[in-house]
């Protein structure tokens, strides 16, 4: 094992964007007070800026006089494999890359983006957690990190006709929209396919699906492997181009959505010839524009609803008003807001691939307790989320702590309330 690939990646990634932010840090530690993993465990090494330490050291020692001086005087040691091994536990097992720390930083440093770079450096050294490596290999082999290979998708897509009488629109050239699901939905939310078909057909949208772009999941983004990220995203990009669609709709995947919308243009060095959207944005807009009709107050049924802001779709995706518009319409005054919402939303504890790392279970469930406290405070017995990974974590967490709280997705709610 060698530190070289890590250093090369850090150097490649260190432009003015990274360097100026590293230079701006005053090491005030305020970011820790926003990090769910630090707050839940009290472990100082979980402070977000400490997770950036390998990158800071590599940058200073390579590019600054003071960094070189520190090494020469023995005040600071050069980065080693042992360091990366230690930071692998911190950056992968106690971070969902949720970005809440960036909002707390008085200097406005995009700490979570810097953490993502550190994670990429650790992966380059071959020190990423085994659980994530396994999922990455699985996705490269069969297209999905959860072992949902092509035959599973064929069965799922075929079942659309049985359930709805409508044939799955496979590879329709000139369609308006390419819909990209995730393998989490095949596994746990198969109805999303049928519900979304009902909505899109009612809205008169010419949509398509494709076996070549079947999973929005991108293990390259999660683990920090640029090659894998490019290869997986490239399948969707090329399919969308080949079919000539005007937009890509990502159903419930959070990181898959931001990867396609925000990362892919820069990874491929081109502006996308189509628009990338998410159901959290599309469905409320379809209601607003009158393209589909829902029964107002359909979910005013004695339950109290609250909305979980997902880190990728809401904080990092910016889609915060739209799902609230739909929920206020559907649940009326039984929809209540938690304390930490919108840009300041609290992570469920299950993002950034942490659910695939068994060693991180304790941290993950400890971080969830903070979310649980907010859900209980608002008195909600139904939590709505637009991210399938968050939904799984919420379900898992409520079950773990024996709480009778239901978790719902926006697709199923809109489909059910349609008239």
């Amino acid at each position: 094992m060698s530190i070289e690939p890590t250093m090369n990646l850090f150097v490649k990634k260190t432009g003015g964007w990274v360097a100026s932010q590293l230079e701006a840090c005053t090491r005030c530690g305020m970011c820790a007070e926003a990090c769910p993993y630090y707050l839940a465990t009290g472990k100082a090494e979980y402070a977000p800026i400490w997770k950036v330490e390998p990158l800071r050291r590599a940058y200073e020692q390579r590019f600054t006089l003071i960094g070189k001086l520190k090494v020469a005087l023995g005040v600071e040691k050069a980065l080693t494999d042992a360091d990366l091994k230690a930071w692998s536990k911190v950056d992968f097992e106690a971070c969902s890359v949720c970005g809440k720390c960036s909002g707390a930083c008085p200097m406005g440093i995009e700490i979570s983006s810097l953490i993502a770079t550190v994670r990429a450096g650790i992966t380059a050294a071959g020190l990423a957690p085994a659980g994530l490596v396994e999922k990455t290999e699985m996705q490269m082999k069969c297209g999905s990190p959860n072992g949902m290979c092509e035959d599973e998708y064929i069965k799922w897509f075929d079942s659309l006709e049985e359930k709805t009488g409508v044939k799955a629109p496979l590879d329709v050239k000139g369609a308006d929209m390419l819909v990209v699901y995730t393998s989490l939905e095949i596994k746990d939310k198969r109805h999303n396919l049928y519900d979304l078909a009902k909505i899109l057909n009612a809205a008169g949208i010419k949509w398509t699906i494709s076996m070549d772009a079947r999973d929005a999941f991108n293990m390259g983004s999660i683990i920090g492997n640029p090659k894998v990220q490019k290869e997986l995203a490239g399948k969707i990009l090329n399919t969308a181009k080949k079919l000539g669609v005007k937009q890509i709709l990502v159903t419930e995947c959070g990181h898959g959505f931001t990867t396609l919308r925000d990362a892919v243009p820069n990874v491929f060095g081109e502006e996308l010839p189509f628009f990338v959207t998410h159901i959290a944005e599309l469905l409320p807009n379809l209601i607003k524009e009158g393209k589909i009709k829902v029964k107002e107050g359909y979910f005013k049924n004695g339950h109290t609803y609250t909305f979980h802001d997902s880190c990728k779709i809401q904080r990092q995706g910016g889609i915060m008003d739209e799902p609230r518009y739909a929920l206020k319409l559907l649940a009326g005054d039984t929809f209540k807001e938690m304390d930490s919402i919108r840009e300041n939303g609290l992570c469920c504890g299950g993002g950034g691939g942490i659910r695939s790392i068994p060693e991180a279970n304790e941290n993950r469930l400890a971080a969830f307790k903070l979310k649980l406290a907010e859900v209980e405070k608002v008195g909600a017995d139904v939590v709505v989320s637009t991210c399938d990974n968050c939904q799984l974590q919420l379900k898992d967490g409520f079950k773990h702590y024996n709480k009778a709280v239901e978790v719902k997705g926006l697709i199923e709610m809109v489909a059910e309330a349609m008239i």
Partner: protein
Amino acid sequence: MNTQTMLELARGPIFYGALLFFIAGMLYRLVTVISLGWNKDLAKPRGDKATGVVKSFLRGGIIFPFFPREKAAYARNPIVYIAGGLFHLSLFIVVILGAAHMLVWKSLIGFGWPTLPLPIVDWMAAVGIIAMVALIVNRMVHPVMKLLTGVAEVLNWLFVFLPMITGYMMTHHMFLPYENLFVLHMMSINVLLVWIPLSRISHFMFYFFSRTIHGVEWGKRNAMP
């Protein structure tokens, strides 16, 4: 060498040498960071980046001290927030709006500005000193800040604190003859000027980068920075 000669050196050639080092050092830091290159963001923005930048600075520089974005986070470590804010306010009032310092600026850049009455400046200097003591105690006690603190962070604190305490002692004629305190004050400023380009105290320059980046990133998603 008598005190008068030492003072003349400290406020004369040594000061101008340190100032030159400071300017050259900061320019070097600026150029090296900028020359590392900047990639163009090709992703279609969902919101306006420029609006995001304006909001970022409004929040970061004006509203932020009174209404922090992550209120709960700031409530958990209020010393950083309160003492840090008071220290920066004190620094601005004493170094910019204090009559003695304004005259130094005037001698350097050729023009001056109205200043605050001495008692206000004096009180704010005391507030700044107390805030600095609170900050270093907090840094030594808080588990996260302890972890983040190395020799450089302690030196940063020390080199900022020395001009503050010697300036205050000088104004109040405390403990040592005025001339001696003046020499100590000037020498501590000279050390600080040399130290800034070598340290994170230079964050005042990179603050403008990080808050701009923050504004662009949050603005393009149409989110509040």
